[in-house]
């Protein structure tokens, strides 16, 4: 689904304010929101999900004005930085939560819910651990459970907050490749937040560089690297590159 953000503003926020954000995302794109902490990237992601109230502007999901929709109605697949798995539920129950919470008229029968849960676990390569609990899983496994749980509701858009932030370097690289493959297979419009320029340039179709609540540049990774539009972008990309080598 196409996602459009029009003149989005937020004056006061716990993390960062946003100033007149305009952004158009085509259906099926994989977008990175890149910036330092406090740049507003997570606030923007949460605003799209409806988790963060906004002061002005509009958010469009296709032709629908999502600004007036509740979190539940937006049907976004949100993967939290620390996964926010339901501790007291098995992996399968976590994944099928969204389906089980549906109104009776649209809820699939039990057997069908179970089948789809197992299918999703297979998709994220976690078949065989359906009956385990989140505290028995590694960080990478939790991450994939969170992803399967978000995919289960067939989301209008997939939103990931620092999806690899809590993982060690090796797992991070593996999951990055894997996420790209998964995106290409499923075709969901995907937006992820990161402060790691390498991750953003490596993974995304287009990168949105943010600073101090505003967008500095929106471009393909190649263009961002080759022709940074502002000194901030140039410095952020370069400094980060120097830091990681």
């Amino acid at each position, binding site marked *: 689904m196409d996602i459009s953000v029009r003149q989005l503003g937020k004056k006061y926020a716990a993390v960062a304010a946003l100033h007149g954000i305009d952004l158009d995302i085509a259906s099926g794109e994989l977008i990175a929101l890149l910036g330092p902490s406090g740049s507003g990237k997570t606030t923007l992601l949460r605003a799209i999900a409806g*988790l963060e109230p906004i002061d002005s502007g509009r958010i469009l999901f296709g032709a629908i004005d999502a600004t007036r929709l509740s*979190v*539940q109605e937006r049907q*976004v697949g949100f993967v939290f930085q*620390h996964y*926010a798995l*339901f501790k007291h539920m098995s992996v399968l129950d976590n994944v099928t*939560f*969204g389906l089980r919470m*549906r109104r009776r008229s649209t809820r699939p029968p039990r057997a069908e819910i179970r089948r789809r849960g197992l299918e999703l676990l297979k998709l994220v390569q976690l078949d065989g651990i359906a009956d385990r609990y989140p505290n028995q899983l590694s960080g990478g496994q939790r991450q994939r459970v969170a992803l399967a749980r978000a995919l289960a509701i067939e989301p209008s858009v997939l939103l990931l907050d620092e999806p690899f932030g809590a993982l060690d370097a090796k797992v991070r690289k593996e999951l990055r490749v894997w996420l790209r493959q998964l995106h290409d297979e499923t075709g969901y419009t995907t937006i992820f937040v990161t402060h790691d320029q390498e991750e953003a340039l490596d993974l995304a179709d287009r990168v949105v560089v943010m600073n101090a609540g505003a967008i500095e540049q929106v471009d393909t990774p190649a263009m961002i690297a080759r022709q940074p539009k502002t000194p901030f972008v140039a410095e952020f990309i370069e400094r980060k590159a120097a830091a990681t080598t």
Partner: protein
Amino acid sequence: MVRRYRSAMSDPAPARWLLIAVTLGFLGVFLLLPLITVFVQALWQGIGTYWNALAEEDTRAAIRLTLLTAAIAVPLNTLFGVAAAWTVAKFEFPGKNLLTTLIDLPFSVSPVIAGMVFVLLFGAQGWFGPWLSAHDIKIVFALPGIVLATTFVTFPFVARELIPLMQAQGTEEEQAAMTLGAGGLRTFWHVTMPNIRWGLFYGVLLCNARAMGEFGAVSVVSGHIRGFTNTLPLHVEALYSDPGEYSAAFAVSSLLALLGFVTLMLKNFLEWRHGDELAALRGKA
């Protein structure tokens, strides 16, 4: 360095034994001995007298009144406690500190004062007294007054257990549930409730123990009508001040002591079985 470290880890044996002896001795004299005394006195004149004292009409009435009071006050405070903890832990609003302080008020006010307040409000000479008597409603010296006083005194238990627990858990799981399409009520039942259930049970347990054992506040509003408005603790006092019923007083006391004992056992069981979840609670309390 190494030697100092080792000596710091293990005190000399005499000091250790002395410390243990003092601790155990203190526990024995101040906690165990009184408990034993209660049961010894209760059974002094034989098990037959003990049973008779418990089966006596006024005692049975006191047991019924205590159970009824707890059956009303504890659920009320459970509901209130969950609502208050939810409000304090999951929302930001002006006056939040004031609310947290107010929740603790019943703990800082003497129970006698708590009882007096209700007499002042609903007693014959109280603010609502004339209106209540005109409509033939009895609050003070009747069940409603006893329930009100008990509810007031046991007000903070559940909320105080849950607030640190819910604050430690944050709101991410609830947010996740919302993005997955769950409404407020379903999120509460399927996500919040399972996460707080043992802390909640713990709070309810303590609330119940206090509700059944409360003396001061209830004493002021009850009127001490034997067989009608005497709860178990009040009944113990009434029996105790009657020289002929000395051992009956201890027989009834043994019930309350037993309640305390069962509460402790359950509490320990909870801590042993669900220590992880309760640790968050203890750490911040």
